[in-house]
């Protein structure tokens, strides 16, 4: 078995001897098994072995980075030397203070399912077939989709003594169902993901996509109007993801985020609280350490409507002179960026049915991402899976409609959050209702 940490240390040694002042390395090794579904059958099975090393070197704060897909000592040394040389070709950056010092996490996490680490493709095919059968709630439904699982090992090593290694597993099932009757088309997708086999339910995924695609037959166009919009669990989560993406401290420091100047300010009503929590056992995006080897934590990003913090890595935290909240994300192919992990949105006291019942006229966005531009905050996109709400009832599916607005206005107009939610390992996504949204049709 390849010793990932030893390989990382060899790359660091090479970079330091080439003149780099600080160095860190990410080494990963992964196996993926995937099943591709087309028209209710198995189209293809595949197995992929992906591994690589990425070395980041600093010289007077300038960054050099080099990666390779070879995990042998020579390639690691070559990547280390290249990264150091390139760091010297970058320019000094006085805002760079230091890579993180080693710090042991005060907790451990379960992220690996032994059963999944050794699963055979035949078992995934069986489960995929159960999903296909469940999706066929009507004979004429076309079932496409897939299933995939992975096992990985990852090491983060730096020249200040950080040496952390982790392993994990994951599995996901997805279905895309289409039904055609004459010129009329209904479609819907659903997925489920987890780190353990027992956390996913392929039959539920198939059934949900199959049943819901039928509901999209007979879609009608809507008029251009300002209306109330109920965002189902996933569209609601996509709105919140847009806020978390803009909370990237590097974007804020570079002044290219709509959250510049909003720290400590009210950006949403009191009913909205959002946590980013990377410390949940078997959480989809959990890890003990972030992409720079700093222990993860539970971060309150929005507290009762107030923006409490930006998401940092070591560079941005040092520059802002604040505590690093460990949001560096990283693969071997590039230098670390900043990202969020598991997202938990506070539950409200409305039932989902009440939210619909108390909407005289509106739109229910059932699925599809509604995303804001991270610079301008502009939201302008199609409603791909929506229904018209009339007199407190979901009346009919819609087509050809667009939603327009600005994320900060949309957040300010949130007036209800549901008690029901979509639970994914680590994530909690309730439905969210927003007043006064411009819909074009």
């Amino acid at each position, binding site marked *: 078995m390849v010793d990932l940490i030893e390989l990382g240390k060899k790359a660091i040694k090479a970079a330091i001897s080439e003149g780099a002042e600080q160095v860190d390395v990410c080494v990963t090794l992964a196996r993926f098994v995937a099943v591709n579904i087309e028209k209710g059958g198995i189209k293809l099975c595949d197995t992929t072995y992906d591994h690589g090393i990425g070395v980041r070197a600093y010289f007077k704060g300038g960054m050099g980075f080099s990666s390779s897909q070879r995990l042998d000592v020579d390639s690691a040394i070559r990547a280390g030397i290249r990264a150091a040389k390139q760091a010297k070709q970058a*320019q000094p950056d006085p805002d760079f203070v230091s890579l993180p010092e080693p710090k042991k996490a005060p907790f451990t996490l379960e992220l690996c399912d032994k059963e999944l680490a050794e699963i055979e493709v035949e078992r995934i095919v069986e489960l995929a077939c159960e999903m296909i059968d469940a999706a066929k709630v009507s004979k004429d439904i076309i079932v496409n989709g897939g299933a995939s699982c992975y096992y990985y090992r990852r090491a983060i090593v730096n020249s200040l003594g950080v040496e952390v290694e982790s392993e994990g597993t994951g599995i996901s099932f997805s279905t895309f169902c289409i039904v055609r009757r004459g010129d009329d*088309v209904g479609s819907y997708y659903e997925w489920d993901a987890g780190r353990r086999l027992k956390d996913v339910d392929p039959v539920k995924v198939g059934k949900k996509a199959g049943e819901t695609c039928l509901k999209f037959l007979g879609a009608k166009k809507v008029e251009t109007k300002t209306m109330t919009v109920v965002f189902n669990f996933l569209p609601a989560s996509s709105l919140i993801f847009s806020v978390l993406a803009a909370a990237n401290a590097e974007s804020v420091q570079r002044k290219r985020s709509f959250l510049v100047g909003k720290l400590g300010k009210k950006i949403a009503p009191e009913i909205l609280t959002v946590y980013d929590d990377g410390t949940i056992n078997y959480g989809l995006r959990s890890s003990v350490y972030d992409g720079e080897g700093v222990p993860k934590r539970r971060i309150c990003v929005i507290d009762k409507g107030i923006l409490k913090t930006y998401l940092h890595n070591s560079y941005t935290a040092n520059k802002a002179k604040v505590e690093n909240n460990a949001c560096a994300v990283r693969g071997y192919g590039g230098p670390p960026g900043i990202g969020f992990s598991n997202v938990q949105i506070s539950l409200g006291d409305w039932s989902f049915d009440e939210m619909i019942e108390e909407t005289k006229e509106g739109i229910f966005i059932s699925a599809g991402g509604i995303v804001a531009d991270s610079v*301008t905050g502009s939201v302008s996109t199609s409603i791909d899976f929506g229904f018209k709400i009339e007199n407190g009832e979901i009346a009919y599916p819609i087509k050809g409609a667009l939603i327009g607005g600005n994320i900060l206005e949309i957040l300010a107009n949130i007036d209800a959050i549901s008690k029901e939610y979509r639970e994914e390992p680590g994530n909690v996504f309730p439905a969210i209702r927003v007043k006064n949204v411009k819909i074009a049709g």
Partner: protein
Amino acid sequence: MIDLMRGVLDKYIEKYRPEFMDLRVFKRLSFSVVIQDGKADKVLSRELWGACARALIDGAWGFSAINSTSREDLERILSEAARMAKASSKRITERGVVAKVKPVVDDVELPVKIKPENIAIEDKVHEFLKIEEEMRKYDARIVNTVLSYNDSVDEEIVVNSLGTEVRQKITRTSISAFVVTKEGEILQRGTEVEAGTQGYEVVKRFIKENKHLKACERAVKLLSAEKPPAGKFTVILDPSVVGLLVHEAFGHNSEADHVLSGESILSDKLGKRVASPLVTIIDDSTIEGAYGSYKYDSEGTPGRKRVIVKNGILKDFLHSLETAAKLNMEPNGSARADTHLWRPIVRMSNTYIAPGDWKFEEMIEDVKEGIYCKASRWGYVFTEKGQFTCNVDESYMIRNGELREMLRNVSFGGLTLETLKKVDAVGRDFVLADKGMCGKAGQGMFVGGGGPHIRIKEVVVGGRR
């Protein structure tokens, strides 16, 4: 390498007697520089290198990939691909097939004028710093500037059981300017890109055309632009937005894998009217220097100029070896893979609407109220419904035949077949203006697009007033 690949492949063909088997080796060396707020703060190099194998056995497909090209690992992925095909065979609804094409043996390198590796890194950094400085100095309201440069050399070798042995080398260079402006609470952005299957001449062209300053100009002007209105309008699209529209609204639907999986609205439309008679849509991978160009696809099939729609009538789809065999059509070299870690799938190359005979002034003069959309940004489509969305950076109201106030953050969307039938004017100009990446099934791919200016009636525009 080819001899090693052929030897190993033949051994496994002998062992498994597949209907089809191939082995592909891919290597990419890339180099990037990011200049930000006055500093070259990142210099990066990456090396991707590995192999993948496909096997079609008893009508079932298997695929396997690894970041290695050793004999041992080539054998490992061939045997894994065969094992995966066996697993697939448990539940196939349609047998896989491959078109029996004439094998190709070739070794090609797409020509470039200035090899990027011949320019010293110091000289590149020096040149980029100068450009970025001009951006920062353009206007006091500019708060962030990013200049990104990337060059890469791909080498792909395809060896298959039909006898094909193709080695292809492609150099790509791209440079982009990104600017953020701020005034009061308003933030706006501007982006310009130049890219091609070319060398450092891409940078020279970017500078000559002052593209970095165009990004600045747009970001500054957008600060005082109006919010767009919502509703149905006549729209005039510039060549970059035409490239985006034809790619999203139509191109993805013409990919034959979508046709076969039931995810295309065009599956029963061959030979039928799908657009206004003014519309001819072409996908052409043979345009020298264009970002989506190549000589051979990732199955070793020669790319070509494909006329998808002629005067509004659907004529062809984009094919892989499998989709062509299943639909009993001719392969046209459209199967491309994002490195060795992914299997080839049907992709567009450079997709455009062919020019017509309208002048821009004629197009605009009888528009009472409409929107002129310039500078495409992003788009996507749900092909099964033919429902697309396009987002543009810069737009203008048209009133009584004249361009009026500037609008920001305009999106328009609709249903492909309805929208393309409402094209009532196609310009005589032509620019292959779009250069970017297209995402499909998890894979990224280099594509180009464009056309002339076109005019479409009754398009839904998503606005805020």
